[in-house]
């Protein structure tokens, strides 16, 4: 399996596709940095988390967190959509499978290599912003900020892995590259994109008026889970993910939550995200293992 990961990684890093994605990430980081520079003055003073503002503060140009929420699914899909069917159509899949390796190491290797690539991209973007941001604002990050950002990073990788898993699943199910690219993209447009999300803005409001039910429905969308989780992680002032009535909020002190309290707040969301990712991978795994190799 190590060999397959090694080869897949080498493939990714020499491919034009990855170069484009990296460029996209760099441009997004630069833009987010610019946005933070414009907007960071005066924010974060009440919570004391100035450094994290680099990732969350945006104005006309969105913040890095917004960019990441938008880009990560696309990166995941781009990395995964041709994982299996491309190898099948070029005939390399049969060649690999006739070697003395377990069949699942092919799909495990591909999934892990994709996750590593994804992690490197996100890590690079965050380091870029952190590094330049540090020069810009001159405020070093507190220990808690580093931990929060790291958990955020893990959440992002899991979120990306979900979309990659989805794309890999379609690449196993369909032989055509176009179909396996369009299917996850369509799902992303319908329930996963943060800019214009028909599921969030039309479907759920149309189905129910109750806030409780609509929240439940919204949480089917991996995007919504991710948005809630990261909001609480990156903003210590963020209080509740459910319904807060006026009586709840009156007298509430506007003081940042401690890390463990924030974590308790997002734990269900994080677990659900991990679950979705695991389900996606498990389905891909089972389908791939059961798929027959046929003489065509």
């Amino acid at each position, binding site marked *: 399996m190590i*060999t*397959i990961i*090694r*080869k897949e990684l080498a*493939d990714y890093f*020499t*491919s034009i596709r990855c170069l484009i994605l990296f460029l996209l990430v760099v441009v997004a980081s630069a833009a987010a940095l610019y946005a933070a520079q414009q907007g960071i003055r005066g924010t974060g003073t009440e919570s004391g988390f100035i450094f994290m503002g680099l990732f969350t503060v945006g104005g006309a140009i969105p913040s890095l967190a917004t960019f990441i929420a938008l880009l990560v699914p696309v990166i995941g899909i781009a990395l995964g959509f041709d994982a299996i069917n491309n*190898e099948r159509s*070029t*005939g*390399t*899949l*049969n*060649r*690999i*499978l*006739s*070697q*003395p*390796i*377990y069949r699942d190491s092919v799909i495990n290797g591909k999934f892990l290599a994709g996750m590593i690539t994804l992690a490197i991209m996100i890590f690079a973007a965050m380091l870029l912003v952190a590094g330049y941001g540090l020069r810009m604002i001159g405020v070093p990050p507190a220990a808690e900020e580093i931990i929060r950002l790291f958990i955020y990073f893990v959440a992002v990788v899991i979120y990306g892995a979900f979309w990659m898993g989805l794309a890999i699943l379609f690449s196993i199910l369909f032989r055509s590259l176009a179909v396996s690219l369009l299917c996850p993209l369509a799902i992303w447009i319908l329930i996963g994109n943060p800019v214009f999300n028909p599921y969030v803005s039309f479907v759920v409001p149309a189905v129910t008026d109750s806030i409780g039910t609509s929240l439940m429905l919204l949480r089917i969308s991996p995007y919504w889970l991710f948005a809630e989780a990261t909001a609480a992680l990156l903003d210590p002032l963020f209080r509740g993910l459910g319904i807060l009535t006026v009586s709840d909020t009156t007298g509430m002190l506007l003081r940042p939550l401690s890390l463990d309290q924030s974590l308790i707040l997002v734990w269900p969301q994080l677990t659900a995200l991990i679950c979705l990712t695991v389900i996606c991978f498990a389905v891909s795994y089972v389908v791939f293992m059961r798929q*027959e*190799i*046929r*003489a065509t």
Partner: protein
Amino acid sequence: MGKNIVLETRDLTKKYDGTTVVDHLNIHVAENEVFGLLGPNGAGKTTTILMLLGLTEPASGSARVFGFDSTRESLKVKRLTGYLPERLGFYENLTARQNLRFIAWLNNMSDEEAERQIDQVLEEVGLVEKADTAVRKFSRGMKQRLGIADVLVKKPRLVILDEPTAGLDPEGINQILDLIAGLPKMDTTVVMCSHRLYEVQRICHSIAILANGKLMVEGALDDLGRDALAGGRYRIEVETAEASPQLVEIIGKIKGVNNVEAEGNFLHVTTDSDLRAAISKAVVDNGVALIQMKVQEFSLDDIYKRYFQEG
């Protein structure tokens, strides 16, 4: 030739969506021979190969390669077996050497061993100069040769080649056939599928013919040829200076001779075994000059046609 059976199938059967593609197939391949698997398109050859390698599960029956069950111990089978698919694919953006190196790694070879082995097989297929060229720049024939290298790089004891000469020019075909024919000397057994009968006839020791998933015939090529041509008998053609009726009678009396027909100065003798020595002695003892004598050659076409006319 060794008598050890390295590959055998027992009532191997495969069904796709209710259609039987391979039907109770029983074939045996002896160690260090070149075995030809023949049959029209859709006869079930490739499916049989996929089952041999454990890539597809049989509906019933079993296949054993070097004593390992193909389905349950496919990893052990694949460690010893190299497979060249009909439609072979390489990573186009990698070089020939990188493609081979990947396969060597998947076979748990150490780095030095892999490099040594890669150099050797590239040499054998004549691609040394192209070792560091990306495969997408390769011609069809070069890819085919790289495919052979790819199969050999893991030092297999058995190679299964599906149409190994497809897309090659005549010179390339000869090179590859020579290479394949030389494999048994290097302790490698060959199973080969091909539609080109003359290629099979040239290098194969035994063949099996499949049609509609069923085994039509299996056996050594020489036996099958005689069988197809003269019902299992030898046909010897004798040219003499003068074919007298007396000579015909004398030859007809040699033990083992079934029939003698005279046609001008030619005698067509049908025998149970190769009696050339006895016949030539009889001719010369009669004071007739013997000009030439040969056992009539059969071609695989004859065998093939015979079984397909019957089928």
